[in-house]
């Protein structure tokens, strides 16, 4: 097991090296990506500023809590982008054009290969800045945030990223059945929007769904709760269970999809 982890870690570092080498080929593209992220985060911040000009809180999220929630949302986005973003986005094209062929013939776990092979290296800079901002914001928010909150947040945050990956990846895998599902990228983007709002703005069955079968609240809201409110171990364990289920489902969908893969003609 240790050998396998070591092997895949080495492999990921090789992916990272090649991605960095590629990204640095095009200076303006590299810098431009940083700007686009900033514009996107700015527009989301503006949206909530407008809301808070009319109300004092969103459920149990105060204005300051929502700002920290937003930082967590941005961080989720950039970390997701760093590891998976360029890869899940390309699944459709690879299946349609048969580019999956050469990837499937490598003596490496194909799911690992397709999920990690391109690293969006520029997201590393955004992530580092956001982590620094998050620490500063939580420090200013309340002195009651302790190490226990940070540990719970860390695990919850990682699981949130994995859930996000599973949802995007499973949607992308629909291409195996529909032969071309370029609309999947948009569909995923629309669904993921629900993770970019604090869970407390929803109520009733839909809110329950966001914590279970459509677990968008587990992507950013739950990590934010672990950080800002009293850590809830039951919620964290539920998140772990849903992460395991989502990962298992993603593996099943991928394996079933591969059986449908008919590789584009030469």
């Amino acid at each position: 097991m240790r050998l396998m982890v070591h092997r895949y870690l080495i492999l990921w570092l090789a992916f990272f090296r090649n991605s960095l080498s590629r990204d640095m080929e095009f200076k303006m593209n590299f810098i431009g990506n940083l700007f686009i992220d900033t514009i996107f985060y700015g527009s989301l911040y503006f949206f909530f500023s407008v809301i808070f000009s009319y109300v004092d809180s969103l459920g149990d999220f105060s204005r300051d809590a929502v700002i920290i929630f937003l930082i967590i949302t941005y961080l989720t986005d950039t970390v997701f982008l760093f590891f998976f973003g360029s890869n899940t986005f390309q699944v459709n094209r690879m299946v349609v054009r048969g580019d999956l062929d050469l990837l499937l013939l490598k003596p490496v776990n194909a799911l690992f290969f397709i999920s990690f092979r391109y690293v969006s290296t520029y997201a590393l800079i955004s992530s580092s800045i956001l982590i620094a901002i998050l620490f500063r914001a939580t420090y200013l928010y309340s002195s009651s945030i302790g190490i226990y909150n940070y540990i719970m947040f860390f695990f919850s945050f990682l699981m949130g990223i994995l859930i996000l990956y599973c949802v995007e990846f499973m949607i992308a895998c629909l291409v195996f059945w529909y032969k071309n599902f370029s609309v999947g990228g948009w569909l995923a983007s629309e669904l993921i929007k629900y993770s970019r709002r604090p869970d407390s703005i929803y109520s009733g069955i839909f809110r329950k769904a966001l914590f279970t079968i459509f677990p968008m609240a587990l992507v950013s809201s739950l990590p934010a709760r672990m950080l800002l409110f009293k850590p809830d171990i039951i919620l964290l364990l539920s998140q772990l269970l849903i992460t395991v289920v989502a990962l298992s489902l993603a593996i099943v969908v991928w394996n079933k999809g591969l059986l449908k893969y008919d590789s584009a003609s030469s």
Partner: protein
Amino acid sequence: MYIKISNLTKSFKMFKRSAGLKGAFKSFFNRQYTNFHALKNISIEINKGEIVGILGENGAGKTTLIKLMVGLLHPTNGEVIIDGYNPWKRKHDYLKNVAIVMGQKNQLWWDIPASESFLLNKHIYQIEDSKYNETLNELVDLLDVRDKLDVQVRRLSLGERMKMEIIASLLHRPSLVLLDEPTLGLDVISQSKIREFVRYYNSKYNATFIITSHYTKDIQEMCQRVLVLNNGSQIYDGLFNDLIKAINPERRLVFEFSEGTDLKYIDSLDGKFEFQIHDSILTAQLPESQLRELLSKLLEKFSPQSMSFEDLPVEETMRSFFQSPEDYL
């Protein structure tokens, strides 16, 4: 037996639609599916170290067969066993010994030098440093691309790119190499370099090669044995030379007489053999046995200035074969 393929069949479910907007609407609401049989009952056995060519027109099933052999596609029926492995289980031990090069697909990263993609493959195949350096140096020198190693792939010519693809595929010294149209679109020099390389690699490492190509010259120069596919069916499995002889048993003799030769004797041969004489050069296109008989009669009376036996152009022979293969087999 290294490769054993038994009764291999592959069908694809496809929908058909008539042309035009009306056809598009009709197909959108009421899609008519049909089964397309890409391969029908293919059986073949291949020994380790053989170079086998797969010949066939577009859509004959060549690439489908290659993809079934490496495990990219699952067969509808039948079985493929390669070195004891079932390819579509894609076991890592099996994949470590296989390489595929597809003329129209690339594994190299487009925007960075090929040498960086090679390093990635080193990690993927877990190749030791010494073995990696040794193999890389050998392949780079054989394919004559040392000065291109640090050039971004997007800046390479098609031929250089194909050579780099081949290097990337062979770094782990696979024992089975599948080349699907490896010389597609390449100039004659690059084509010849790749053919030469395949022969060298095969003889040095006893690697098994399965090659598809539209260029009959590729097959002629690299493969002794060929499998011919026609509309998904196997119509020939045997020596390439035997196939050519079966299609066109004739060869050409070009016999140049010495200066001042009295050609009266030739008239006595006219009628028995078909030939033409032009500027003291006799040319005859006949089956080999008749050609030998004619030559021995000529040599009884004349000492030639020069003479040669020529095979008829293989491309033309194969073209006429594919027009109506049933006439020849």
